[in-house]
């Protein structure tokens, strides 16, 4: 076994622990306080936002415009509309602005 292989397998184990750990800890509670309930309910928006915000900050005009258009498309359409409108805006503006 090479070092690389060990690192990969240890990384895989560490990752698996994050995937099962939250459940194992929470399943020990028999009652969920309303505030904990609110915290769990906030998880998707709170975590997924952190994956968008820094990318938006580092982006230029095409990237920001793409996010705005995709965000508006999300109000009306599904994931395909979000993708197509966002990507089209991005490609067009990058082309026009030469960015």
């Amino acid at each position, binding site marked *: 076994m090479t*070092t*690389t292989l*060990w*690192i*990969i*397998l*240890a*990384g895989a184990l*560490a*990752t698996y622990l*994050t*995937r*099962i750990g*939250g*459940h194992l*800890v*929470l*399943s020990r*509670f028999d*009652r*969920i*306080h*309303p*505030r904990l*309930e*609110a*915290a*769990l*309910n*906030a*998880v*998707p*928006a*709170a*975590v*997924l*936002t*952190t*994956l*968008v*915000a*820094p*990318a938006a*900050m580092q*982006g230029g005009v095409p*990237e920001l415009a*793409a*996010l705005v258009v995709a*965000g508006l498309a*999300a*109000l009306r359409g599904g*994931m395909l509309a*979000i*993708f197509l409108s*966002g*990507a089209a805006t*991005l*490609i067009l503006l*990058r*082309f026009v602005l030469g960015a």
Partner: protein
Amino acid sequence: MIPPRPSPSNLDEFVRGLRRSVPINVAIFPFGLLYGALAVDNGLTATDAMLMSATVYAGASQLVGIELFGQKVAPWLIVLSIFAVNFRHVLYSAVLGRRTRGWSPLGRAFGFFFVTDAQFAEVERRSDEGKPITPAWYAGLALPVYLAWVAEAGAGAYFGRLVADPHAIGLDFLLPIYFLGLVMEFRGRRLWLPIVAASAAAAILAERFIGSPWHVTIGAVAGIAVAVVLTPSAPAGQDSGEAAR
């Protein structure tokens, strides 16, 4: 509301999951290829690159990991970095346990291996629609993404940069667009706007002053803290310590 119907067969559920996997695969394929190409650049064999995709199965942490492989960093530090990038899964896992109450412990132990940002978001979306999270639906969603992710690592490793100029056709920015779409899916939930605002502000500040990947955990904690603070405590007579038992 959908009128009550006989419960759908496993096959129907599996196919419904499959359908939801399509946009996920569109969003991640450039990263699967990029990861494979970079892994080889950083000294991994194609087999190792695919093995990492198959066992770690978490894109951002794999990219961080191979970056560190290239720099000859101490092995434990690479593992710790992978753990830090993936720490957000603890939160997903805590929520998913409550969405999968009918599952066996073994089913969870196996199924939760496939938890990713997108897998989690789709589960939450379906749960907001009032539909059950059946193992068949979950598998239909997870399986194509997993298989594509491993295949993309191999394709990226063998054929290098298949896409000549990912920037020109916007591939490098597909993932933020996709994640924004996911964030928007939850706008019907309580306190969505304050949560998103706090999480975005904290993530941006943390990214600038502390650095990646801590902005994810810090931003998430800020958003969740806002939800907790803005939620009234239990009705009178209930002690907040009780939940911890």
